[in-house]
């Protein structure tokens, strides 16, 4: 007999259910094989331990289980989960009839799912209340609303611009953004094909410059708001359908550019030139010959 056969017969061997010949073979193998001898001892001990479990029934049951069972089996008023659902609203409103409450309570005690459901609803209500207390509007919300409502037709770029602005609160950033906006406006104006758009862009550029000057001088909050409004306008112009068309016809140098007096532009020193450089480089690649505003 080998180890595998011994294992196959082990249960019968332990329960003395083998015929005498196989039993003798098993006994002989157990004598010579140390592993199988150990296995025999272990399995016999395990069987003893498992048997002991059956004597005990020693897993204590919940004290309310019997009550639950009685409530579930005793004939009489028993709500279904659907009926329970219908009563939940009344439960939260506190408008139960006395007998209704009892049946509701009984179902609640017996049905784990409905207990969870009710717990979930209570949690949700609590969370809503908490959220109500906690939510405070951001400080710049009124400003943003003003900008959004007094600005022109809204476009995606325009919205993005507002979002960007909300993060740029320091005066330095405001100036940087303005430079960028002014450059962008000039760029737009350079390639605009619709007359009205050109006029608006020019106006915006003028306003921007004025506001920029104003902003640099006063640095006041009001000035910044005005700057922001101007920037928003530029943003909405950029989002206008004319600017979204991909094919922009090449044009001769635009008179608008001559109207911008760069000598008067409020650049305190030369550092801002850097900001404008990408604009001129882009303009040359996109559309034919274009005198860069910086190349004078």
């Amino acid at each position, binding site marked *: 007999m080998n180890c595998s056969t011994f294992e196959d017969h082990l249960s019968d061997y*332990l329960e003395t259910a083998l015929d005498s010949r196989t039993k003798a073979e098993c006994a002989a193998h157990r004598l010579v094989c140390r592993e199988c001898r150990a296995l025999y001892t272990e399995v016999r001990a395990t069987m003893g331990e498992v048997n002991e479990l059956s004597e005990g029934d020693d897993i204590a049951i919940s004290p309310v289980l*019997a009550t639950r069972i009685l409530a579930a089996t005793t004939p009489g008023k028993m709500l279904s989960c659907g009926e329970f659902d219908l009563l939940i609203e009344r439960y939260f409103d506190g408008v139960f009839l006395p007998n209704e409450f009892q049946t509701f309570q009984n179902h609640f005690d017996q049905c784990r799912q409905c207990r969870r459901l009710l717990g979930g609803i209570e949690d949700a209500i609590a969370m809503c209340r908490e959220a109500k207390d906690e939510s405070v509007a951001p400080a710049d919300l009124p400003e943003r609303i003003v900008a959004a409502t007094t600005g022109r037709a809204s476009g995606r770029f325009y919205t993005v611009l507002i979002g960007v602005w909300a993060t740029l609160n320091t005066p330095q950033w405001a100036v940087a953004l303005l430079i960028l906006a002014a450059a962008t406006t000039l760029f737009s104006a350079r390639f605009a094909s619709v007359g009205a758009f050109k006029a608006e862009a020019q106006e915006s550029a003028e306003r921007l410059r004025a506001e920029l000057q104003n902003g640099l001088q006063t640095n006041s909050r009001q000035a910044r708001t005005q700057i922001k409004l101007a920037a928003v306008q530029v943003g909405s112009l950029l989002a206008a359908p004319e600017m979204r068309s991909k094919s922009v016809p090449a044009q001769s140098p635009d008179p608008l550019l001559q109207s911008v007096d760069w000598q008067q532009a409020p650049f305190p020193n030369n550092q801002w030139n850097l900001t404008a450089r990408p604009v001129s480089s882009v303009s040359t690649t996109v559309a034919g010959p274009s005198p860069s505003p910086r190349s004078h």
Partner: protein
Amino acid sequence: MSSYQMNLGASLITSDADLVRRCRAGDSVAWEHVVQEYSRRVYNLAYRFTGRHETAEDLTQEVFVRVYRSLEQYDAQAGDLANWLMRLARNLVIDDYRRRTRTPTDLGDDLEDHSYHLESRTDTPDRGVERTERAKQVHAAIAKLPHDLRECVILRDIEELTYQEIVDILNIPLGTVKSRINRGRIDLAKILRRMKVVETL
């Protein structure tokens, strides 16, 4: 038929048949007695298969709902109420066990979390603690067995059914039952050995 006597309410009950007759007639005291008497046993059976207290409680309740509805079918001539009730419980618990092992989403075991559920009813405190600890280990080891081996070992070595009874309940051939019990016992011994090794490390 068991020849016990108990005093329920005003009247004396002398047999299972009597008890069941009173339950059928809507005697809540008699039915409460049945629930109190057997719920622990049913619960233990359910817990051994499920390894989860919540599931075991739900199952126990389900068993008694079924028993209550089937009281008409109990035939005192055919055997004890305990046997009849436990047979019904076993069928239901095994049905549920097999359903869950086919969809193994609910198979987590919470044996570790609920150690307090194991209580001891032995004489000395020391021995009691020791025994409870060991019982906990054996339960945990059984829970680690593959489910087909687990059900056979539980039915044979805890529920102490005969091979033929197991064949009838599980509806599988005798040879399969025998080999699963054998394999289950060997695996169980090995699992317990490993647990011991881990413990001593």
